[in-house]
């Protein structure tokens, strides 16, 4: 254990002396969070919208057609009327969905029709979708009003939230940044150190000492967890002080950062075993982390992405880190966070175990 502490101490000293390492670990995510915070106003891509039509009348079908005509949505129709829409939205982690109630056509004639909009307030995209829906309904009401026999048709949008609190984009963004920071810190550092130590012969020198490979890997992982925590602290301070993000102190978020570091440092070790040249190893790490950053919901809600990209997100480990951190730190949903934490922890243990198993200090 003493050797682990010695190696850990030396690693931290070297980290703080490397301006580039400090920059990429702390300043880079800070700049990203500031930039995204400043420029994010709205998003204008096509939204996936689930619609449950409980009325199944020409009027309800007409409303769905009107939604389609906006060209703003990829509509997905829930065929089964027995499904409880709110539970479905929670279960599928949908940010929003539309329910056309039974008797919609009847109520329309009595100027009493409603369209239910179930939505998650933490998602900025929900506000955008609600705005589009309101426009569609207003347009419909205007047309009804201009009908010659004045039937007094009228539709009202009835919003219903599925999250108890009001969340901003920054609330969504901050956990994503913490997850991204922990991932990049861990994988790049693991790749860089392994390939550089191999290339410069430091591994060979270490192999001549009583330091065991497993002790070195343990120290390295502790070091990366520590640096990930520093990154997390910086992001939290910026998010809380500048963007008024309300963070719930939940130990699960700390466990998630630990397991994320384990997962990606293990992945880095695996990478550097197969890609030995430091530059190529760095490029390989980029090839893994960049798509993951954008496809796992770090910066943008998954609902905004096409279906096939969302399917990819389900197999990306960072998706579970993002979801877990949001559930734990922002949404106050520890039960949902536990599931994500377990997934990340299992993957973390597997990756670290495989990484440790295949890491070699010398070729034989």
């Amino acid at each position, binding site marked *: 254990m003493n*050797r682990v502490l010695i190696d850990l101490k*030396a690693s931290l000293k070297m980290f703080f*002396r490397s301006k580039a390492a400090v920059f990429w670990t702390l300043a880079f995510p800070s700049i990203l969070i500031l930039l995204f915070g400043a420029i994010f106003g709205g998003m204008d891509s096509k939204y996936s919208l689930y619609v449950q039509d409980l009325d199944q009348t020409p009027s309800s079908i007409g409303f769905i057609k009107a939604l389609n005509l906006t060209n703003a949505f990829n509509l997905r129709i829930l065929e089964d009327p027995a499904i409880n829409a709110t539970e479905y939205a929670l279960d599928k982690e949908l940010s929003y969905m539309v329910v056309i109630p039974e008797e919609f056509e009847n109520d329309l004639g009595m100027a009493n029709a409603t369209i239910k909009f179930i939505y998650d307030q933490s998602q900025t995209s929900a506000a955008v979708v609600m705005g589009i829906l309101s426009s569609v309904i207003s347009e419909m009401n205007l047309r009804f009003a201009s009908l010659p026999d004045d039937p007094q048709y009228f539709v009202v949008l009835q919003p219903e939230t599925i999250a108890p609190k009001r969340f901003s984009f920054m609330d969504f963004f901050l956990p994503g940044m913490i997850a991204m920071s922990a991932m990049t810190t861990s994988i790049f550092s693991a790749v860089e150190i392994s390939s550089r130590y191999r290339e*410069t012969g*430091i591994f*060979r*020198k270490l192999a001549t000492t*009583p330091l065991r490979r497993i002790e070195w890997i343990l120290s390295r992982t502790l070091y990366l967890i520590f640096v990930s925590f520093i990154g997390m602290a910086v992001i939290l301070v910026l998010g809380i002080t500048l963007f008024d993000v309300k963070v719930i102190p939940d130990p699960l978020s700390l466990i998630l950062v630990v397991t994320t570091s384990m997962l990606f440092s293990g992945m880095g070790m695996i990478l550097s075993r197969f890609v030995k040249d430091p530059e190529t190893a760095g490029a390989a790490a980029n090839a893994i982390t960049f798509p993951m950053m954008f496809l796992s919901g770090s910066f943008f809600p998954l609902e905004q992405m096409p279906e096939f990209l969302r399917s990819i997100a389900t197999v990306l480990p960072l998706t579970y880190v993002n979801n877990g951190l949001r559930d734990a730190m922002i949404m106050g949903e520890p039960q949902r966070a536990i599931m994500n934490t377990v997934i990340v922890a299992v993957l973390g243990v597997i990756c670290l175990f495989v990484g440790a198993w295949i890491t070699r200090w010398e070729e*034989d």
Partner: protein
Amino acid sequence: MLLGKNSIAIEVDSLVKKYGDLTAVDSISFTINKGEIFSFLGPNGAGKTTTVEVLECLRKPTSGRAYVLSFDISKDQDEIKKRIGVLPQEFNTFDSLTVRENLQYFAGMFGSSVDIDSLIKLVDLEDKRNEQYKKLSGGLKQRLGVAMALVNDPEIVFLDEPTGGLDPKARHEVWNVIRGLKKQGKTIFLTTHYMEEAEVLSDTVTIIHKGKIVAKGTPEELITQYGQRNLLILKNTDKVAVPLIETLGLEASFDSDAGDVKVTLNHNFDMSEIVRALTLKQVAFGELQLKRSSLEDVFLNLTGEMLREGETQ
């Protein structure tokens, strides 16, 4: 396994190391006595570094046996690692740690309570103790490497190309450190491509070629046995000296371009015979130059190859 041979530092018996079909080390055997400087010479790909790495417990042998301080390299790696110090070829350490911090780090790995300051003094790095490794010159880096090989107060020090790439001054400084280690009673296993280095430092030399040992002995023994005879050059000398010298039973020739007479000596005392004969016959001769046979000649004779920097393995 303890052999109980207290005077032997390293014993290698029929050691073989194969990489697939390639036999890098082909059944070599040698012993190194405690307290001696042993030089291991060989051209590129001869199997030197492989042998050293097997002895340092970094690689497993394919067959054969080797004992370091009577410990079996196949079974007692932990015991061996505690007792040896290693300066690897093209040595490197943590860039942004200082001289002192690097030494403390590696001392900590051994759980050693060695006096870091005295180690710094030994390699004459007192002015640089708080300098980061990356800021040191090549010679200073090598000296730190030697100091790092000593943090556990080892009985055997493996120095793989300790002066590679250094200027002559820095090289001599490292030689002085190595001589100091010998005075402390340490056994030195030296791998070098500098023949002069092996000649001036070594007690014994072993030459490996294509995985096999082709010669071993003291530098003098090897030069006597495998080197060429010494050559005497008489500058600006008339060619009439040639038949005169040949009457002494020596091979002589006239270099018409340089105007020199060249004589292959059987013994160094032949020189006085030549001078006396020429003086008696009043044959004028210029400056006398003696070209001694060296370990380089031995190496060339045995391997047919020159050792060049950067080509050692």
